[in-house]
């Protein structure tokens, strides 16, 4: 079951990475140009977001009619709906790092195949940040990661 889900995940990651490359979002300068509203603004990222959200709106509607996914025992989805300090603080930090490097996790990892050295610098530092956050949060109970809810068929 896990092996079949992993095959789906590999295909999904492959199409995702290809989409990033086709859209131009593997170029950090393009991403920064979207955030650079006081400069030579490039709206491409907004087109990418709209393009990505449209199939997902359909997918959520199909999901509502399904008992279980094609492969696997159930849907594993975030169940929290409270906007807390953890979420706000995390989003602020993510936005700052995104603006500095022009990369978010997806393009950073996809770029390992396009520009291995600078992409690896970003990805290794990102994993370091994730590790530091984990060590920090394990000492602070209120910063514990929210759990996913499993809807089992």
């Amino acid at each position, binding site marked *: 079951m*896990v092996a079949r*889900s*992993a095959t*789906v*995940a*590999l*295909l*999904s*990651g*492959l*199409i995702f*990475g*290809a989409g990033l*490359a086709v*859209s*131009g979002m*593997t*170029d*950090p*300068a393009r991403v920064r140009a979207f955030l650079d509203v*006081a400069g030579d603004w*490039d709206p*491409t990222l907004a087109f990418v977001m709209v*393009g990505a*959200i449209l*199939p*997902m709106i359909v*997918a959520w509607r199909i999901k509502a009619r399904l008992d*279980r*996914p094609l*492969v*696997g*025992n159930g*849907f*594993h989805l*975030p169940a929290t709906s409270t*906007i807390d300090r*953890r*979420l706000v603080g995390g989003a602020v*930090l*993510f*936005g700052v*790092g*995104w*603006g500095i490097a*022009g*990369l978010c*996790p997806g393009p*950073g990892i996809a770029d*390992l*195949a*396009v520009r291995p050295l600078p992409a690896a610098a*970003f990805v290794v530092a*990102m*994993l*370091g940040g*994730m590790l530091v*956050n*984990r060590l920090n949060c394990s000492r602070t109970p209120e910063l514990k*990661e929210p759990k996913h809810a499993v809807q089992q068929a």
Partner: protein
Amino acid sequence: MIDPASLVHGLIGGLMIGVAAAAMLLGAGRIAGVSGLAARAAGISDAGAPRLIAAAFVIGLPLGAWLVSAVLGRIETRFPSSILTLAVGGFIVGIGTRLGSGCTSGHGVCGVSRLSPRSLAATAIFMAAGITTVTAMRWLGVSW
């Protein structure tokens, strides 16, 4: 001037990303959130997808980008010249995405399309923080 072709490419690439996220949701019952799956694949998170599933998705990302570069030719990528810029940005992205439970894919694509209040808030906040950061860097003369 923005080349209209780049907007069309953006829309097509975006649709591919959305189809990929839909395949992950309807196919495997999981959210295609890159930061969460990357943390899980690297063994930095206890919650989330089984490690094999997370690793398979993460490995797919560079494979897909490589495939496009092999078919369409060289992909333009302009990186900052300083490794330090990438390391500082990456480190902050790492902390922020884990603390905020998601990034552009999990919150921005999967959560916003679900109208999740947390994802709508997170997306508005990280967009605003990104714009503020790039604008501040421009004013400080440290843009790259």
